[in-house]
C-alpha cells in the first residue's frame, strides 16, 4: 500500500500540490494576521464586526483553514480519481495486477494523508504567527488558545481529521456524476452546511456533529469503492 501511495504522489506530480499548499497557507496566514492585528474586518469606528461566536482567533483560524483545505482536498480527490476516470488513465490502472479497490483506496489515502499533514502544519504555522504577533501588537480578536497545552494539539488534530475526511463526501458525488466540478461544488455546499448559522444555531458548535460527520464521510468513502470490482469502465 505504501508503494502504491508513493506512486500516486509521483504520477500526480505532488510537488505542484506542495507548492500550492504552501502558497495557500501563506495567504491564509496573511489574511488571519490582517484580521487579528490590522483590523481589516472592523467597523469604521474601530469595533470588531464578527458573527456571534466568531470573535476569537481560534474560531477564525479553524473556519478559514477548514474551508480552504476542504476545497483543496476535493480538488485533489477530483484530480487523482474523478479525472482519472475521465481521461481514461483509470482504464490503464485497472489492467495492472492490483485489485481495483486497493488502487482506489491508495488514491484516497494518498490525498487524505497529504491534506491532513498540510492542514495540521498550516494551522500550526498560523497559530504560531498569531501567538508571536500577540506579543508585540494588540489583537482585535480574543487570543483564546494555549500552545503549551496538549489539548490544543489534540483538538487541532481532531478537527483536521474531520475536515479532510469530509472530502470523501465530495468524492462520492464527483464519482457518481462523473464530474470533477460536481465534487468541488459539493465541497462548497459542505462548508455552508457545517459553518453557516441559522439564527443562533450552527452545526459547527455542536460537539456530536463532527463525530457524525466523520462516520458519514467514511461511509461515503466505502460506498465509492464497494462496487468497483463489478462495474464496467466506460
Amino acid at each position, binding site marked *: 500500500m505504501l*508503494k502504491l501511495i508513493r*506512486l500516486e504522489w*509521483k*504520477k500526480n*506530480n505532488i510537488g505542484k500540490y506542495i507548492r500550492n499548499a504552501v502558497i495557500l497557507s501563506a495567504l491564509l496566514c496573511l489574511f488571519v494576521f490582517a484580521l487579528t492585528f490590522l483590523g481589516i474586518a472592523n467597523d469604521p469606528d474601530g469595533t470588531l464586526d464578527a458573527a456571534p461566536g466568531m470573535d476569537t482567533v481560534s474560531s477564525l483560524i479553524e473556519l478559514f483553514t477548514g474551508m480552504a483545505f476542504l476545497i483543496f482536498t476535493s480538488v485533489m480527490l477530483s484530480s487523482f480519481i474523478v479525472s482519472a476516470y475521465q*481521461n*481514461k*488513465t483509470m*482504464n*490503464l*490502472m*485497472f*489492467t*495492472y*495486477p*492490483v*485489485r*481495483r479497490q486497493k488502487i482506489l483506496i491508495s488514491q484516497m489515502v494518498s490525498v487524505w494523508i497529504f491534506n491532513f499533514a498540510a492542514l495540521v502544519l498550516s494551522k500550526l504555522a498560523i497559530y504560531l504567527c498569531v501567538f508571536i504577533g500577540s506579543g508585540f501588537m494588540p489583537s482585535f480578536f480574543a487570543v483564546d488558545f494555549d500552545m503549551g497545552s496538549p489539548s490544543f494539539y489534540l483538538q487541532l488534530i481532531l478537527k483536521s481529521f474531520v475536515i479532510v475526511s469530509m472530502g470523501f463526501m465530495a468524492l462520492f458525488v464527483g464519482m457518481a456524476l462523473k464530474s470533477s466540478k460536481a465534487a468541488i461544488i459539493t465541497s462548497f455546499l459542505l462548508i455552508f452546511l457545517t459553518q453557516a448559522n441559522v439564527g443562533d444555531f450552527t452545526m459547527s458548535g455542536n460537539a456530536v456533529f463532527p463525530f457524525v460527520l466523520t462516520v458519514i464521510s467514511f461511509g461515503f468513502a466505502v460506498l465509492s469503492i464497494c462496487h468497483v*470490482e*463489478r*462495474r*464496467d*469502465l466506460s
Partner: protein
Amino acid sequence: MSYVLQTNHLTKRIDGKELVNDVNIHVKKGEIYGFAGPNGAGKTTVMKMITNLWKPTEGTVELFGVPLENTSCEVFRRMGSIIEFPTFYEHMSGRDNLWLHCEYMGYYHRDGIPETLEMLGLAGAADQPVKKYSLGMKQRLGIARAVLCRPELVVLDEPTNGLDPAGLKQIRELFKMLSTEYGITFLISSHLLSEIESIADTVGIISHGKMVREVSMEEISEMNTAFIELSVENTQKAAYVLTEKLNLDRFKVLDDVRIRIYDATVTTQNISRELLLNGVEIVSITKHTGSLEDYFLKMTAEVEKSC
C-alpha cells in the same frame, strides 16, 4: 488443446442492446491472432472483456487456462494491452511512463526500458513529456509499454492507428520477432485487413457482434484459390488438352488467347507441362488467389444476409 486465451459463449448486453453474442475465440500459444471485423462489429467490446475492463453478461473468458473473475488481477502480470487508444500521464516523459508501468507490474529488469524505447524508435524522445508526442509516437509508446515486461500475451486494439507506412512495417516486423523469438502470443484487432493478412497466423472474423469464422491463414489461402488464367497461342488446342489429357471440365475460354481454369486441384506446373508436351505454346500462366479481404467480404456478406 490448451489455449492461452479462450472465450466461451461470450455475450455482452448494455441496456438491453446486444453488443456481442456467443463469441468463441481460441488463441494458441505463440501465435499472432488477427481479430478482424467492420467498425462497430464488437472487437473492442470483446477486448475490453478479455482485459476485465468490462464484465461479460454471459459466457466466460479463460486466460492461461484459468477463468477470469470480477476480482482477477494477478493474471495481468502476464499480459500487456492497448484498448481503444493508449493513455499516459501526459506531464511525465515517455521513459517515466514506462518506469511507472514497471513499478505497477512488479517488473524490475530496468534495462528493458532503454532497450524497448530503442526498439520502437523512441530513444531520442524518451525524456520529452508525452504531451509533446505526436499520435504515432504515442501509439509506439503504447506498444512499447505493452511489450516492455515481456508478457506472455499481448492484446492490442488497432495498434497501427496513426502510424506511417515505415512505422507500420517496423511494428509488423517487431510483432513477428517477439512472437518467434520470445514466444509472445498476440491478439491484434485491426480494420486494415492487409495488415492482419501480413502478420496473422490465425484470423477471427466478427460481424454484427457474432463470430463468423475462426480460421488459419493457411486455410484461407487454400480455400481462396480463385482461378488459373492461361494465355496461349491456340485456345482450341489448349481446351482440347485440358479436357482430354487433364480431365478438366471447369474452365472457360474468355477470348482468342485467354482461358480461365476454376479447379483448385490442378497445379500450374501440371498444366504447363501437359500443354508443352502437346505442342501448345504458352504466353503466360498465372494463379489468382483471393485476398483476406475477399474472404472477409464473403463471410460478412453471408452474416448480413442472415441478419
